[in-house]
């Protein structure tokens, strides 16, 4: 493919990207979160149409009209999340959407050989094709997806972070299969954050940053440092207004916080007036950490102490202790989309306006309007439905609610996700002001530059554990990146031998 561009509104997701995958080779697509890797794969697999540029396959122009068209042309995609119909049999899953049905009847017999062959290729030699797909392990299901690609005669297979949900043993098996597929002449595109994995299975690499190609070549010719600096190399400009604030005494202490499966035994101490950043890759357990501190999901163990006192194990108890959570999922969890701005801001905290069980609607409206002014929500009136607001304004409403809850410790999960640059700057300034007022902020973000610009200290998470905490000035982007992509298993212990006489 050459010169691919894709725009979503005013933002360029892809800008003039070119890519080449020779048959029998594996190309690693590398980039930070939001660099445009997934968009590129979606263009390749037909889920999105490119605005400009052209694609060819085997010399023929390739212009898929949709995912099924791409599949028919020989491009198959293995997504991060599994896409099998869990209630159907293995065999039916592999044949799903396949031609070869006779007049609407599924002629399984005729296809059985192809199914068997595909299962053998992916190493599932003793799996019964009539077994239920949903009953198989995650690793087996992933192999089934690959087998499905083989049944559809794929010539190119796209892998989107295939190892993120696999245990180590199965990762090795997957690599073995990828090598076998490569040897049989397929072209493979492989997305992963873990550089050592990439070295293991890929021949070529291509680095994306902000939707552009910034480097490509043979993977054997570059070292990790070079790839990391290609990924993060970016100037921090004055998009990040800061407000001077003073970091005070310790405020929140988290001890051995453990969830299912993430976070993994996290210890943490955050100070008054501090903005503490949590960096890490998508799926590293950062959201889970915030939710565990807020006790939103059951099954967490460990303690949270505020001002030295342990807090109760329920959301209302945590809220009383001064915690407030800004959800990453603004659309379905962060806000009740059907309700008005007014309702959303005061949701769950109506006590201040209530006398003898009756709400004083006028006082509630005034309080909500004041908060709207404070966070500068642009809306017709407090009665306007939240669903009609832009993403940035919605986020401000969500922040207004935490302020309305009188929260002192703000857990902010991706507060700038899907927001225009101007509003982002407003939110950074607001965070600075809140810290200057003595509030404590825990700031999770996938966008490293904003963390580096806004936070006093940054902790890096990887595979559920909080790996390393330093003051922001002691970090470099490259160092954060290399901690985030470290893949050693923390529970199995560090690499130091424990017992060695």
């Amino acid at each position, binding site marked *: 493919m050459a010169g691919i561009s894709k725009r979503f509104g005013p933002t360029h997701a892809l800008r003039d990207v070119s890519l080449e995958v020779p048959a029998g080779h594996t190309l690693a697509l590398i980039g930070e979160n939001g660099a445009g890797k997934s968009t590129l794969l979606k263009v390749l697999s037909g889920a999105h149409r490119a605005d400009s540029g052209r694609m060819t396959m085997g010399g023929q122009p390739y212009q898929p009209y949709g995912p099924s068209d791409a599949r028919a042309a020989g491009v198959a995609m293995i997504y991060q999340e599994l896409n099998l119909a869990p209630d159907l049999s293995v065999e039916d899953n592999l044949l799903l959407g396949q031609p070869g049905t006779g007049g609407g009847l599924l002629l399984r017999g005729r296809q059985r050989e192809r199914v068997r062959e595909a299962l053998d290729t992916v190493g599932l030699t003793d799996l019964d094709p009539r077994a239920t797909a949903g009953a198989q392990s995650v690793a087996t299901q992933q192999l089934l997806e690959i087998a499905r690609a083989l049944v559809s005669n794929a010539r190119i297979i796209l892998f989107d972070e295939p190892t993120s949900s696999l245990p180590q043993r199965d990762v090795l098996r997957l690599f073995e299969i990828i090598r076998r597929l490569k040897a049989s002449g397929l072209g493979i595109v492989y997305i992963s954050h873990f550089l050592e994995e990439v070295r293991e299975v890929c021949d070529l690499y291509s680095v994306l940053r902000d939707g552009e190609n910034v480097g490509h070549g043979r993977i054997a010719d570059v070292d990790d440092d070079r790839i990391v600096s290609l990924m993060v190399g970016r100037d921090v400009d004055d998009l990040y207004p800061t407000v001077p604030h003073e970091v005070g005494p310790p405020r929140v202490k988290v001890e051995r916080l453990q969830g299912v499966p993430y976070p993994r035994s996290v210890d943490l101490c955050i100070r008054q007036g501090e903005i503490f950043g949590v960096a890490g890759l998508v799926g590293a357990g950062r959201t889970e950490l915030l939710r565990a501190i807020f006790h*939103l999901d059951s099954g967490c163990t460990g303690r949270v102490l505020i001002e030295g006192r342990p807090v109760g194990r329920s*959301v*209302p108890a945590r*809220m009383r202790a001064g915690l407030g*959570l800004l*959800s990453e*999922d603004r659309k*379905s*969890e*962060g*806000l*009740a*989309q*059907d*309700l*008005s701005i007014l*309702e959303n801001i*005061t*949701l*769950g*905290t*109506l*006590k201040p306006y*209530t006398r003898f*069980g*009756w*709400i004083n*609607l006028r006082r509630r409206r005034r309080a909500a309007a004041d908060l709207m002014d404070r966070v500068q929500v642009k809306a*017709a*009136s407090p*009665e*306007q439905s939240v669903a009609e607001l832009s993403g940035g304004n919605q986020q401000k409403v969500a922040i207004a*609610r935490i302020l309305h*809850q009188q929260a002192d410790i703000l857990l902010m999960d991706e507060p700038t996700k899907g927001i225009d640059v101007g509003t982002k700057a407003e939110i950074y300034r607001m965070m600075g002001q809140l810290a200057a007022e003595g509030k404590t902020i825990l700031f999770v973000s996938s966008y490293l530059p904003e963390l580096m610009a806004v936070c006093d200290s940054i902790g890096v998470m990887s595979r559920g554990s909080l790996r390393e905490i330093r003051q922001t000035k002691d970090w470099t982007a490259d160092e954060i990146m290399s901690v985030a992509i470290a893949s050693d298993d923390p529970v199995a212990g560090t690499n130091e031998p424990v017992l060695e006489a």
Partner: protein
Amino acid sequence: MFEKLKHFAMQLGPLIALVVIFVLFAIADNVFSEGYFLSLYNLRVMLSSAALIAVPAFGMTIIIIAAGIDLSAGTALTLCGTVLAVQLKNAEVAAGEPGFAAAMIGALLLTILAGCLCGLFNGTLISATRVVPFIVTLGTMTIFLGVGQILAGESTVYAPTENIPRWLKYLCYTGSDGSKYLIDGLKIPTSVLIAAVLAIGVGLLMRYTVFGRNVFALGSSESTARLCGINVPMMILSVYTLAGFFVAIGGLLYFADVKNGNPTDGTGKELEIIAAVVLGGGSLSGGRGSIMGTMVGALIITVIRSGCMQLSIPNTYTHIIIGVIIIVAVIVDQLRHGSPEWFFRLLPQRTDNSR
């Protein structure tokens, strides 16, 4: 200000529909029939039978705003009526004799308790098992029917007339004798007065109390409600139990209407109740619905039924008309919210697909 107006107009939709239907029937009745539809007597009859639907529908409105559904409302309602009938049948003192007041209060309390227990049972099952309300109440629908039949000894329970106090006897009275109404001379059926008082009560409850606002929050987005520290299981429990209270009052009105308790009468009533809520603008996906709307919905159903009767339209066609109106009402309501997408794609330009 504009938002407030828009909000008000949305509430007005069902009312406009009611007025249109009412006027159409009034004209048709004047032209094709003897103009009986607009008589005061018929208006009283319509209001009273609307009250019979509206009261349990208030509870259903709360449930539907909370994104739930209660298919067991119909059989729970007749179960309550049967409980009352059995109590009055077994009362050892006749109405007016000393000691009857205590027996009557006991019977009433038991009736209300039965309704609340039905609701509590639904609520407990739903919040404890997380099975969808549709399935849970589909099951309890037949359970309540069975319990009612056991109570009734598998037949209709007739309470002897002398055991029914005067106020209960004339609770749904719509005739011309002014002295038989609750307020002497003011010819408004007592059932309508009860419905009106309850409507004001629930309306205030939903608008001015923390409970009411939390119901809207829960129905609009359960995960947001959880995020805001609302005790979701407790809310579900209270919502269904409160709805059970309204079902019990509905059972009382039902008994006063037919003077007996027949558990099987309840099957199908739940659909009428749900239809009233939906006609009034309630959304089965939760977060939307209003008490005023539900009252209007109940009136729409009874006006259509009564109008068809006056015009001698056979019952079978009445069913079809009501069905069509429910579907049309929901489609209109959806159009106001921008759904279905394909319809709006058809309307404007389709320049985008030219590439």
